[in-house]
């Protein structure tokens, strides 16, 4: 999207202003939906950036878990302030991504997928077996942040601002990445790693970088989420949530790193909340939506407008995952 200077200025003021006012007039249910929207957008972007470099991650939920538990341990057992615990949790998550990534990203394609799946499950089971982390009952009673001036964290208001703060920072970061040289490099690597390598690009470095970036933001989100909920347990980090990262990005459109997950997460958060009363049908509907999108709109709902206008669909995102045989 090309925006001229004045459009950017207007948006730059309007969006924060809208967000600042929102808790005052939005009903609580919608505040919750929007908060979850922010959460899934970030997790989706973390997944999508990996897809960009050509890797399909099936374990994004592990970063949510690490961020959540790291922060909770710090605030509950070590009595750290929420803010320090939050940042540290993000860093811990990033370090974890680094440590795992360095080993796991050597593997390609199918193996990477399986290993990320295994790592996520392994982490979850390890947590469920550790008494210090609350084992299967989980942890609760983590103290949240104190109120900042008039912004209260005992109601949703403060959390709303916090999650949107993370969302904006994450969106800006990923937008910059998409537009900059790094983003192009990711695409080259994703399209054909061998070719990119022959150009002298150090593939591992970029892949790990993308992994850590996604891990960091997802970890931050997980830490905030844990304190927003007030309680966490291993049940909240099951494989299904890694699927949600996929759903969100696919539904919205994998063509755009930021707008795709943004759109997809909005749909998901809304559907999840409004169909909560019919759980079986909700799961069924999600599955059908995925299939419909994959078959009829492979690049996601973002391209819907283009399709109506007869614009040829940008096929590039799927190129680099073509099987060769």
């Amino acid at each position, binding site marked *: 999207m090309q925006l001229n200077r004045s459009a950017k200025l207007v948006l730059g003021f309007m969006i924060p202003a809208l967000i600042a006012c929102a808790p005052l007039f939005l009903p609580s249910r919608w505040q919750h939906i929007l908060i979850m929207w922010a959460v899934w957008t970030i997790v989706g972007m973390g997944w999508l950036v990996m897809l960009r470099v050509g890797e399909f991650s099936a374990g994004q939920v592990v970063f949510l878990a690490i961020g959540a538990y790291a922060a909770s341990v710090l605030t509950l057992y070590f009595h750290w302030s929420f803010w320090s615990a939050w940042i540290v949790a993000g860093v811990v998550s990033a370090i974890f991504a680094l440590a795992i990534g360095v080993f796991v990203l050597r593997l390609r394609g199918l193996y990477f997928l399986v290993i990320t799946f295994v790592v996520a499950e392994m982490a979850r089971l390890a947590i469920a077996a550790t008494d210090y982390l609350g084992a299967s009952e989980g942890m609760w009673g983590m103290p949240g942040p104190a109120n900042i001036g008039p912004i209260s964290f005992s109601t949703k208001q403060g959390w709303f601002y916090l999650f949107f703060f993370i969302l904006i920072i994450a969106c800006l970061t990923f937008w910059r990445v998409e537009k900059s040289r790094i983003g192009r490099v990711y695409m080259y690597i994703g399209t054909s790693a061998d070719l990119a390598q022959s150009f002298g690009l150090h593939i591992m470095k970029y892949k790990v970088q993308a992994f850590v970036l996604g891990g960091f933001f997802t970890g931050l989100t997980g830490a905030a989420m844990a304190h927003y909920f007030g*309680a966490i*347990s291993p049940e909240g980090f099951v494989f299904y949530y890694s699927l949600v990262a996929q759903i969100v990005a696919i539904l919205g459109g994998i063509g755009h790193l930021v707008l795709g997950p943004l759109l997809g997460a909005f749909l998901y958060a809304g559907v999840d*909340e409004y169909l909560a009363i019919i*759980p079986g049908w909700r799961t069924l509907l999600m599955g059908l939506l995925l299939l419909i999108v994959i078959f009829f709109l492979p690049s996601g709902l973002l391209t819907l407008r283009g399709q109506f206008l007869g614009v040829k669909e940008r096929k590039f995102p799927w190129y680099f995952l073509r099987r060769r045989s």
Partner: protein
Amino acid sequence: MKQRGISTRFSVICVVSVLVALALMVACAAPAPTPKMGVLKVGTSLPMSGPAAAWGNPIAEATQIYVDLLNQDGGVTIGDTTYTLKLIVSDDKYTPEGVKASADRLVYTEKVDVVVGGWLPTLATVLAAECTAANIVFIQNVRELPGLAVVSPEHPTMFNLGDPQIQMMWVPIQLKQQGALPDIKTYAMLTKDDTIGRSTAETIIGLKEEWKAKYGLDMVYDAIFPIASVDMTPWLSAIAALKPKVDLIYAASATATNMALIAKQSHELGLDVPVVGIASLTDVGAFCDTAGYDASQYAYTIGCAPWQASGVSAEYLEMASRIRQVYRDKHGTDLTYGAAFGYCATQLAAYLEAAKIAGSTKTEDVVRALETQPIKHFYGTLMASGEETYGIKHRLMYDAMVVKVEGRETKFVVAFGEPIP
């Protein structure tokens, strides 16, 4: 010229005057008071999907039947208003995210007037926070006490209504002493591997010598199994290999599913001894389905239906029977204690009683009534304990009641309150 008698005109005037007088009298009579109507929204959060759904759905259904019957009877009259009850069941999916969304939905979106039920510390914590913020009454049944102690001081509108946790480990002793299983001499203990399970195991092992000396009940085997185990054979084979054959398997801390599998697999191994546990069975038919009909007949567990308990008022006995009948007509199986009555409906009953006593649905009034008056509900009549029991001031506790599975129903066996000194 004077007419004979009363003139027509005069008659007409008289009649009209009388009629007008009558009309005026009727019009000025005190108007009959029209009853005020209202809607009382009751919220509860249950796992309706996900792994615990088999547990949550019968509870929701039983509570819904209760609410429907109350409405059918003309609603609930509190003070001068007659309320139609509306039950809102929110699915918490048994995940932290679900719990938060659920609590939110109940308190802010649906704006319920009271929240009942809540059996997990995570769930209770989140709900308690929301209910306190919204200043509405919250009556729960959290069994895991450490969680309660953490949150209760900040939540003056929260009450705990349930059966006793600590006393329950005396079930085998009570079964022996009260003549239900008089000949048992040895037992094998199995507990699930979580905080409660391990502490229960520790306590009972500590009591081992005392139980042997005083009651003639000896523990010959004990093991802790992972909570998610689906195959109990490793431990059951070891138990089956004991000579002489053990008299009882005591699942001192186990879920209903654990118990069903223990019953099923011990039966498979030919180990047909009573399986005693403290898990609540929502739907006995489902338990028999999971364990297999024959195996399920060996199960004893905690909790019974209101019609099996003693000290329940006639009013609540009748209501409980009606709920039972509706469920039976629909499903063909019986709905006994389980959490069906004890985890939601009883808490609702207590709230309604307190509101009726107080004559209003204002939070402060109901809380005062709950704190000071005897409250009737499905398991008797209780007064809140004023002392700090396990860190909670607002605790209404009834006797532990043991049942045995018979056919596809349960039969009351023994009840006990305080542990034997």
